[in-house]
């Protein structure tokens, strides 16, 4: 490739960087910087530009409340919180929680939440049948709002002080 010659005011020549190439790159870099600065100043999110506000809201009480999927084991009726990636993939627990919170705020949320929870149950069962995880078969999947008083050693993770059932979806016979 024939190298370009970029003559700078002081005389040196960059054999690969023409003035047009330099201007083009400057525009691209300017756009990237402007995108980052604008999202920072305006406090908005436009992926891949972000204000990086995770963990910016200060916590003030030693409590935690969040929606969580809880599976009801077939036969025993035992309840198990489903937060591990292998059970809820491709979601992770933060993304799923964010999705459920969004649905909880929408009008007509009952129908939307039922579809969402049924979809999670369907994918759980598909993963179990494909041996993608070792979870037990479920007879139902429940969406709870769980609340904890934080224990210094997190000993009460599986025993929240507050449990509010939002929705239950039973497994269909043909899905087992």
């Amino acid at each position: 490739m024939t190298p370009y010659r970029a003559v700078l005011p002081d005389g040196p020549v960059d054999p690969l960087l023409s003035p047009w190439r330099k201007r083009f790159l400057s525009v691209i870099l300017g756009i990237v910087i402007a995108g980052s600065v604008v999202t920072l100043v305006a406090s908005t999110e436009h992926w891949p530009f972000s204000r990086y506000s995770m963990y910016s809201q200060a916590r003030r009480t030693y409590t935690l409340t969040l929606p969580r999927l809880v599976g009801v084991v077939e036969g025993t009726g035992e309840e198990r919180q489903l937060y591990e990636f292998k059970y809820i993939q491709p979601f992770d627990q933060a993304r799923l929680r964010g999705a459920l919170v969004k649905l909880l705020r929408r009008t007509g949320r009952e129908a939307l939440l039922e579809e969402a929870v049924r979809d999670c149950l369907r994918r759980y069962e598909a993963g179990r049948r494909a041996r993608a995880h070792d979870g037990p078969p479920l007879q139902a999947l429940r969406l709870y709002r769980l609340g904890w008083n934080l224990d210094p050693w997190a000993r009460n993770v599986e025993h929240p002080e507050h449990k509010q059932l939002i929705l239950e979806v039973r497994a269909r016979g043909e899905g087992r």
Partner: protein
Amino acid sequence: MSWGGRQWTQFWFEPVTATNLGVCRLLFFGSLFLFYLRRDLSAWADVSPVFLSPIALFEALHLPVASRDTLVGMQTVWKLSLAFSSLGLLTRPSTWTSFALGVYLLGLAHNFGKAHSHDAILVLTMGFMALSRCGDSCSVDTLLRRRQRPSTPNARYPVASGEYGWPIKGVWVVLALVFFAAGVAKLRASGLDWIASDNLSIMILQNYYHRANADPLTSWGLHLAGHPWLVRGVAAATVGVELAFPLVLVSRVARAILVPGLLLMLVGIRLVMGPSFEQFAFAFLFWVPWDRLARASRTKRLARSPVDDRPNAAPERAPTLRRPVPSAPAPRRFRAGDSAGGRPGDGPGQGW
């Protein structure tokens, strides 16, 4: 050219050799390939549309959620292009393919529920690499070019050029803005309460209740949270490092302190809080002066070898092209270390 224009040119387009960029390409794309090799991004095709909440980019480009088969094909091509980009084989099409498919495949998950921001740096870095001449060094393409045209100067010696510095500076600037934004967001949302209250202790404890996108790797956070004043010190250091991070763009001392400090912070977050920010660590590869490390290693090897075995003095800097100017005296050629301002620069690969 105005003063601002000269400063801009000096910062972004200071001539450096291609080695640093080539090594960064090899390691960055290699890390991405290994990280995503066993991850299945096609599973999003099976998620119910009830979860769909498109991000602005996908809405603007009218990008749909592809079918499972299409996603499987796309991610296979993407992972291959990451490997090719790392090796520097068909570098230009490989890096462009990595970028284009990466925007879609990495962006897809953000359309379902919550937009995480930990992989945005990867997309921007891939974009820089696609636009750059990152295949001019440490690449299969260069080896093949040398074999085909061994007598051509360009085939054997990549010249020092501003083309080889701006992508690395681009990653530096983006990272500086990322962490500065994180610090600003904390103070904007919570003020000094973020530091002076029990906030960080509570955050650490909450993440042991499976709140973050990944659980803490250790139980150290539970011990740490029991010492509020220590945690407040950590909180102050966190915000301080984030707000001071842009100094790394202009100060070698700041780079030496803040870059390792922030990397340690990311490791610490993973260990005691959980959120997986490994993707940021891949971008930190661009801070390492690989060419200086290679030179130092070569110098040590030469110093250890017997005097009779040492080669004649090897050139410290890459030789430049010689192109006579027909109607004017031959202009001074760029050498590594020159800058538009006429003094040795402080760019990537030079005096880091």
